[in-house]
């Protein structure tokens, strides 16, 4: 479904990705793990069209989408829940969700708003509150709900548990599990590497801009030797 081939992405003189490749197949949950500064966020942002790769290509459902505008990617069925959530704090919860459905028809938007209210009772309780007043966990659920409003066939999530309390981390992982059962294809960047890999079908380990290991999620997670050498800490870490 998603094929990233040998992409190199630069920020001015700094190269954040050195020819990284990965693949996500229909219905899979793929985890992308690695230490800070490995280029995980750069990779997701490149796929989502926020950054343009210097070399390499990105294919989605066989079509070359390298360097396409995010707006057209959303219409093609690809949504990103960005790092730090980036919900619109000046907008209400409902307005955030409505905007998430910007590419949908009016009827679809209404239908999905109802769905979101059902799936996220926490949000329904704060429907008309400014999103700036939400707690970290609520904001994360809003960020995911907002991305789901475009009914993406591929959902990219960047550090969905970053900065969340341990109990809320559980809620988010539970949500990921539920989305997976519904057959939603996902590519997740996670700091809770072990936990993410255990949940995932497959995983990729990224380090200083290179993919250094890949394989079945559980196997990669179990390979603690490999893990220690790259991350130095194989125990799941809770939020910072």
């Amino acid at each position, binding site marked *: 479904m998603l094929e990233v081939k040998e992409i190199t992405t630069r920020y001015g003189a700094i190269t954040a990705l050195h020819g990284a490749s990965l693949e996500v197949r229909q219905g899979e949950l793929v985890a992308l793990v690695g230490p800070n500064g490995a280029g995980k966020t750069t990779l997701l942002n490149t796929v*989502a*069209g*926020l950054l343009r790769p210097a070399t390499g290509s990105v294919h989605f459902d066989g079509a070359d989408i390298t360097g396409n*505008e*995010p*707006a057209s990617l*959303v*219409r093609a069925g690809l*949504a*990103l829940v*960005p790092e730090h959530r*980036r*919900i*619109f*704090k*000046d*907008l209400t919860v409902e*307005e955030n969700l*409505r*905007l*998430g459905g*910007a*590419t949908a028809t009016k009827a679809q938007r209404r239908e999905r708003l109802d769905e979101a209210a059902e799936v996220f009772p926490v949000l329904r309780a704060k429907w008309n509150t400014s999103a700036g007043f939400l707690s970290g966990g609520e904001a994360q659920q809003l960020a995911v709900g*907002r*991305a789901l409003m*475009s009914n993406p066939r591929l959902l990219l999530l960047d550090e969905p548990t970053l900065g969340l309390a341990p109990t809320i981390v559980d809620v988010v992982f539970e949500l990921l599990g539920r989305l997976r059962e519904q057959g939603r294809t996902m590519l997740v960047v996670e700091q809770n590497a072990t936990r993410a890999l255990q949940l995932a079908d497959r995983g990729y380990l990224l380090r200083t801009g290179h993919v250094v290991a890949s394989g079945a999620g559980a196997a990669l997670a179990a390979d603690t030797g490999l893990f220690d050498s790259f991350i130095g800490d194989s125990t799941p870490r809770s939020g910072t």
Partner: protein
Amino acid sequence: MTKLVQTLVDGLGVGSTYALLALGISLIFGVMHLVNFAHGELITVGAYAAYFFFLHGGSWWWMPAVIITMAMIASVFTELVAFRWVRNASPFTLLLTSFAIERLSHALWQIFVSPKQRPFPKPAWVFNQFKIGNVSFEVMDIVTISVTVATLAITALVFKRTLFGLSVRAAAEDFDAARLMGVRANRVISGAFAFAGLLAGVAACLIVMRSPAAEPSMGSDWLLKAVIAAVIGGLGSFSGAVVGGIVLGLLETFTRAYLPEVATGWDKFSTALVFILIAAFFVVRPDGIFKVSHAERV
């Protein structure tokens, strides 16, 4: 008491025109971090549109539609030919671009029309007066205030209810996040310029109804006041722009009405005093009335 009410109405009249202009400036600043010094030129465009429309036998009935349409077209046009190309440049480059457009506009009107003022007839009812109690009002005061209130109400509705309004607000807060929602950058920016043009067009109508004449540099004075109003309110804050405009209008009329007349020519001092008060205000609140946390400083 009579004087107080009249000054208040005057102040609201001037202030609401500032508010319409300041809102446009804040809107553009929100979506692209540009303090658009060419915004005042939209008034000039509106005034010349009115002048030429009259020259060809137009009447006041159609005038607002003509002025507003031309201001909107001009606004979108400046984005298309100038600002779009420097969109990702530094705020300073954007600022200089807007200065260039302002100067260019002055020059073009001078060369192709005339450096002199071009008057046209005003609507007959403008300075008609009526009394409530023993306070007399001009019809124009009431028109100005009610048109502004209606325009702001529609604006609020657009920003609150429509997808376009949500996109603009979201883009003002976090442009990339808005793009991730499927908002098209070009479309939301063009839309913001069109809307700012509409607001400036309404302001232009109110301005030329009072003083029906077109002049190459007529936009500049209004622009300066509008920028100040937007900054008082907190650049990028839409409600702030409106409050800033009203506050500035009231401040001006009240200082003019209540400062003692020391000698002839001293009425100019009211403008100076207004600027001193504004300077003092920024010492206390450098970010304006409504601080916009996500707006970058320029």
